[in-house]
Every structure is written in structure tokens, then in C-alpha cells.
């Protein structure tokens, strides 16, 4: 059964992840009163890129080619740790939430290396911002994970469902809020980064993959959409712990709906507010840390 969970998680993610991108952009377009790209746009892009050839810079080394594989691989491995439908994954174990964070780290490490590998100042800039935000967000992420681990007991991702119901509302809300913020930061969305300004200088994630092309770019896009999915799952599970009590099929539908909801919210946020000034972001990240800490405090010292 646990193996099934793994299978379902991975399969659903691999199928549905690029959809979220489409949803977000549809919402943004609707707000802007435009028609917007088709929902399946990202699928088309990936498929096309797969067939394209690559342009490699003379500067680059094998690192540049390894990076996409590692990014995708690490996210996939992270996905097999996720529980589902109230059941822990077969790979789950005590402390796997720490492993999850570190697995996501590998992808970032290699993406940054690939960016620096091209020797392009733009990508260096993007890398600088990316790792800076990551460094600031990591403690908050760990504290949120600590909330997850302790609320259900068992110190594992499976305890996302352990807490049956909202036994501690305040902490849950705070944790969900913090997780949502982390979701925005880690996936480089507004208000922390604007992925579709026309000038590379203002972007973080998009500028790092500036030199990737063809299948590499496809893998990168796919990996990042999977990452969105993964963080979305976390947000949903933290926000509604009771989802674990749903019957099996209902659970997956609920999950899909929930993550799409997160995507919609992302779209709304992106159209509602502008990007923060780059120098203010560290303080906001500290604010997120404060939220996480507070939720943990509510949980521990109630």
C-alpha cells in the first residue's frame, strides 16, 4: 500500500504539475482582462523543447549539463518521500522532513553552479539572489517542518496527517501562512521575484536558466513545476490536516483541487501586488521566520 502511495504521488505530480503554471497565468490574465495562454502551455513548451537541439556556451563544463538532471532527480526523490491519503510513504522514516529540505537543497546547489558555470554576469546575479533568499528562508522552513513533525508526533512527513483535525488552530494557521510564503519565495514568485519582467536583471530564477536550451531547459522547467507542486502539497496538507481522513480517491481529488487553489491564490497575489524592493526582502524573510517561530511557540507552550 505504501508503495502505491509513492506511485500515486509521483504519477499525479508528473502529470498535473505543469498544469498549475497554466492556472496561475490564466488567473493573472483574467485579472489583466486578457485572454491569456492556454492552460496546457507549459506542456507544449516542454514537448517542443524536448525536440530542439541545444546551444552550449564554450565556457561551460559538464556541470552545466549535469545540473538539469540533478534538479529533476532531486525533486522526484523528494516526491517519493511524501505521504498521501493518511498513509505514510513506503520511503518515509523518522526525520525524513529534514532529508526533504536537503534534497531540495541539492537541486538549488547545482542550479547555482550551472549559473556560475556560464560565467555570465546576469546569471551570477541571479545565483547571488537565489542562494541569499534560500539561506534566509531555510530556518523558517525547518521550523515549519518542526511544527509539522511535532504536531502529529512521529517526526516524519507522515505526521502531516497525524494531527486529526485542528487541535491548535493558531499554530496551524501561522504555519500554513509561513509555508505559503516559503512557497512563494522558493518558487521565485511575486512579491519576491517577478518571473516575467522583460529585463533579465530583475529576475532571479528565470535568469539563472538563461543559457539553458533544448532538453536542458525542458528539464529545468519541468523540475521547477514539480517543485511548485511539491510546495503546494505541503501548503495544502498543513492548511487542512483533516485531508488525511478523506477516503482514498477523494483524497487525490482534494489534493489536486487544493493545489490548484494555491495556484489560483498565487495568481491573485501576483496580479494584486508588485514586487518588493530587493533590499527589503531579507527583512520580510525575517518576518516569515517570526511567523514560523510563533506557530511553533503556540504549538509547544500552549
Amino acid at each position: 500500500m505504501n508503495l502505491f502511495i509513492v506511485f500515486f504521488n509521483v504519477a499525479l505530480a508528473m502529470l498535473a504539475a505543469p498544469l498549475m503554471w497554466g492556472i496561475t497565468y490564466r488567473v493573472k490574465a483574467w485579472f489583466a482582462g486578457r485572454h491569456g495562454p492556454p492552460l496546457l502551455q507549459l506542456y507544449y513548451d516542454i514537448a517542443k523543447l524536448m525536440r530542439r537541439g541545444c546551444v552550449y556556451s564554450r565556457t561551460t563544463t559538464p556541470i552545466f549539463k549535469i545540473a538539469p538532471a540533478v534538479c529533476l532527480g532531486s525533486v522526484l526523490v523528494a516526491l517519493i518521500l511524501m505521504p498521501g491519503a493518511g498513509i505514510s510513504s513506503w520511503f518515509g522514516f523518522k526525520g525524513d522532513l529534514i532529508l526533504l529540505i536537503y534534497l531540495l537543497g541539492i537541486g538549488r546547489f547545482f542550479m547555482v553552479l550551472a549559473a556560475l558555470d556560464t560565467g555570465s554576469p546576469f546569471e551570477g546575479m541571479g545565483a547571488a539572489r537565489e542562494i541569499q533568499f534560500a539561506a534566509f528562508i531555510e530556518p523558517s522552513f525547518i521550523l515549519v517542518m518542526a511544527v509539522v513533525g511535532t504536531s502529529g508526533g512521529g517526526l516524519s512527513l507522515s505526521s502531516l496527517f497525524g494531527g486529526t483535525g485542528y487541535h491548535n488552530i493558531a499554530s496551524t494557521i501561522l504555519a500554513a501562512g509561513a509555508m505559503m510564503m516559503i512557497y512563494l519565495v522558493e518558487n521565485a514568485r511575486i512579491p519576491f521575484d517577478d518571473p516575467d519582467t522583460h529585463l533579465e536583471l530583475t529576475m532571479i530564477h528565470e535568469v539563472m536558466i538563461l543559457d539553458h536550451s533544448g532538453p536542458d531547459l525542458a528539464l529545468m522547467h519541468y523540475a521547477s513545476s514539480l517543485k511548485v507542486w511539491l510546495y503546494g502539497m505541503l501548503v495544502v496538507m498543513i492548511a487542512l490536516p483533516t485531508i488525511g481522513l478523506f477516503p482514498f480517491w477523494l483524497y487525490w481529488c482534494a489534493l489536486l483541487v487544493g493545489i490548484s487553489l494555491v495556484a489560483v491564490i498565487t495568481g491573485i497575489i501576483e496580479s494584486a501586488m508588485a514586487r518588493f524592493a530587493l533590499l527589503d526582502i531579507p527583512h520580510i524573510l525575517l518576518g516569515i521566520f517570526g511567523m514560523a517561530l510563533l506557530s511553533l511557540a503556540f504549538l509547544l507552550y500552549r
Partner: protein
Amino acid sequence: MGIFLFLIALLLFCGFASLLRIKGNNLIGIMGPIAAFAGGMPTVFTMLVSKSYIQQSINFPFPFGLCNFEFDIVSAIFMIPLLLIGMTAAFYGGCICKPEHAVPGRPIWFFFNLLMAGIMLILVSANTLMFLLGWEIMSWSSFFLICTYHRKNEVRTAGIIYFIATHIGVLLIITAFLLLQGQVEDFNFSSFLIPESGIASVIFILALIGFGAKAGLVPFHVWLPEAHPAAPGYISAVLSGVMCKVGIYGIVRILLLMPEHQPWWGWILLLLGAISAVYGIILALAQQDFKRLLAYSTVENLGIISMGLGMGVLAAEYDMPDISRLFFVGSALHVINHAIFKGLLFMAAGSILNQTGEHDLNRLGGLLKRMPSTATFMLIGCAAICGLPPFNGFIGEFVIFTQGLECLTHESWYLPAAAVLMLTALGLTGGLAMVCFSKLAGIILLGEPRSRAAEDCIPVNPGLRFPLGILAGLCLCLGIFLPLLLSDFMAWKISLIFIILIVLCTGLYFWRRKLAASAHNRTGITWDCGYVGGSNRIQYTGSGLVQPLTRFFKPLMLRKKSVKIPSGIFPDKGRWSIIYDDLILDAGYRQLFDAIKNICFKLRWIQSGHLNRYILYIALVLILLLIWELL
């Protein structure tokens, strides 16, 4: 037990033999550590599996008397880095054909063997005098090793700073041991009595400062960032990988010698560790000299270890024995792992310095193409030190993390608070470490070379790659198989997941290669928005990469900025450099010592050369004593 005493003797012999003016004396000097590795490892492993301990006491003539020697699990754990890094470093040092500068060969091997012998003596001795003997031998031999290139001023300064730090430390350690011994006649640990709490706390504080100075815990770390760049690469590898650990060993030993701990000891260890970890990594990522960077990251890692120790003590105080045990296990794992990847990184840095002669990473770049194997090993080291799976840096931090989460469930107020502190510090450290080492790897190894020295540097000779290869291989193997040793939780899954990860990534890599091969690929220049006049100098520098962070953490560092704006009709070259220096050294200790010096100079008038005054002193002291005693 006997084997280690024999090895100590052997090392001493090799040291002295390497001094002789005979052919191949260097070879003798190198054989010492290698033989020690060959001879010592089996015993260490038998110890680790059969968690027993050996004891032996030998009767020396005065001043030592009857000395106990003891080899238990703790010694075994700390013995592994000693033997391993000692062996590899010796091999590396032996294979350096073109030294970084003119190196006087013989003394290095003398002091190297003495250093190893001293550390081994520390690890096996259960006797104050023997311990201190080994400690001091370690201290001064390492001082002379640091001063290998003593012709250079900064090297001498570094050595002097180190020696001052270590000697003040040893004075405190001596005091701690003497207090612990109290009125007891003989110097053996076994015969010590348990001191009452007041004295015990004093002893702990003294030992903490004394050993912390060696382990490089903030604020006693100031010698590290000076000493490591000064010494040759493989020496720094030993200093950072082994000698700093001995400081930790001392703390552990003192904790073991005093069975009754107090909670606030754990708190102090934890706080010191947290401060060291965060401060160390922040300064590390601000550095431009890559050996200084590695030195500061040593501070960070020892901070992590001592955090683990502190949490262990706390957990034991709040009666969670299993968890405290696991904390100690995690620290032990990190001790071994850090020795391995830090040794690897320092030796790789040594090779790079050797080939390019550049200390400043902002002037390097593109070395992955120029010295592929060394660079690959260095890359592995960087990934490992960031604690990334599937390398060995992960497991230690993982154990400490999970136990920290366990502590959150304790009902008292203090333990969860400590755990939250530890989790935060560890998390922040992890994130910043990734910044720091993606900077190291990305700027030095990737991109285009930023200076001529980096442009035309050539691979090192195979002898220098071999030890790096060993260590890099260990990084991977230990990363995968070390979890299997942890029977406490289902850690074998970690190994499994790591293997899946590796397989998956390689699979994806080859798949995308097939895809790419099917289509037709082109190579060109990096995308530059159509800007044509580009040069390698417009690449992102390491300082630029971390600028947002250094700007954020500015208050913690001493910013030394030197600007030269080009001016005039025919302006010459302009310059702009910012160096981030250690606040604690410059604003703390330097000021203190200057103050002492000034006081002394202010009192110079006492010896003014006037005979009348001298006689006056005599008369005054006489009268004073008469009044004082006869009143």
C-alpha cells in the same frame, strides 16, 4: 594499547630520523604517519565494534611516576581522523615536488611526526602529566609547522598569534586539571575525586576556554583564520581536521571526568556552538582568501559539533538518555566527516595555491577545465561540507537535527527552547554554508579564469591527486553507508534513497544526452545580450556573489575599504577593494593587548636609572614591611 605506545615511539623515531643528513630522510618522515595508519586502524575498528576499552599503566621515573593509559571508544573516534588525515597529508606532503615557496624540508617532517605523536599521546593518556606533555608537544610542533615559511612577516605574525592563544589556553587547562586533582597525590585520572559543584563549575569554565581556544570556538577562534592561510595546505589539513578536534576531545574528556553536570554547562556549550557556527560561516562567506574561508568554515563546523555536545548534556540533564546519546553520536559522526572533507578541501586548496600562487579567489576561475581531477574532488568536498546528500556531511547534521526535533516534545520549558535555538542556528548555518561553498566552487572552478595565473595553470602531479581521491571516495562511500551503522531509526532507508537518487540522476543525465544527441547542437559564447566588448573581468566575482549577505551582516564584521579613484587628464589605474576582517581580533584582543602594553610603557619610569630612586624603593619596601608585620 601497546600498539599505540609503540606507534608513538615509532613516530618519534621517524621524526628524529628525518632530521639526519642522510639520503631519503624525508621518506622516513613520511613513513611514520603511514605506518601509524596501517598499525593503528585495525585496533581502532576492533574497539569500535567491541565497545570495550583497554587500560594499561606504566611506571616511569620521576617526574611522571606511575602513568595510566586508556583507550576507550571516545579516543577511538578521535583517533580515526588523526590516523586518516595524518596518512593522507603525509602522502600529499611527500609528493609535493614544487613547493608553494622554498620549503626547508627536514624540520617539517620532524615536527609533523612530533605533532602526530603528541596528539596520539593525548588521546591515549589517562594521566594529567602525560596529557599535558602531549598537549604541549602538539602545541609547539604545530606552531613550528605554521611557521614553515617564517621568512614572511604575516606568517610569523600568524604563528605568534597562534602561540599566544594556545599558551594562554594551556595555562587554563593546567589550572583546570590541577583543581580537578585537588589534594590527590598521583596524577592519574582514575584516582581523581569528584569535585563539589562550585569547583566543578570553575573547572568546566577553565577547561572550556582552554580547550575552546584550541577547538576554535568563538570568541577564542582568532588564531585559526590567521594560522591556516599561513601554513602549507596539507599542514592546515591536519591542523583543522585533527588538532581542532583534539580541543573537542578535551571538552568531552573533562565532561566524562566530572560525572555530575549542570544544565547551564549544556547551555553554555550550546550558545558557544551556535555563535561559532553562525559567526564562523558569515565571516567565511565574506572572505576572499580561500584558505581563510576554509579556516572560518572550520570554526563553523566545530560550532556545530559543540552544539551537539551541548544539546547532549542538556538532554541528559532532562533525563532523555537515548536522545543525549544520539546527540553525542551525531557530534562524533560530524567530527569524523568534517575531518575528511575539510582535509580534502585544504589539500585541494593547497594544490590550487601551488599551481596558481593566488590566494584571492576573485582572481581565479575555470580551473575545472585546467586541473579536472583536483577540481572534481574539490567539488565533491564542497557538496559534502554543505551537508548535501548523498555525501558524508549530511548524516551528522541529520542526526543532530532529528534529535533536536525529538527534544521539542519534552514537557519542560527549557529543553524545547534550546532545541529551537539549535534548529534555527543549524538551519541558518546550513543555508549560509551553501552560499559560502557554492561561491568557493563556482568562482574558483567554474566560469572563465580571471587572471593570467589561473589562465595558464597546469594539472598537479598524480601523487597529489591520489590522497584527494581517497578522501573524495570516502566522502561518497561514508555518505551512503554510514547511515547503516545507525540502528536507532530506519536509517538504512537513507542509504536506499541516496542510491535511488544517484541512479535516477545518472539515468536522467544519459537520457537527456540521448535526446540532445538526436537533435543537432551548436556551441557559441555565453548569452551577453548582444554586448560585444566583454572580457573575463565582467564575470560575477565571489565578493559580488555574497554582497547582499555581507551587506546584511555588516555590523558583525570589520569592513576595510580601500579606494583609489582614477584622476587627472591621463588617469592611471583605479583600485577598489573591500576586505572583511575579524571584529573580535581587531576590536577585541588587539585592543586588550595594546592596553596592557601601554600600561607597561607608562610604568617604565620605575626603572629610571636614578640610583637615589632605587635606594628609595629599598627603603620604602623595608619600612612598609616593618610597619605591616610589626604593627
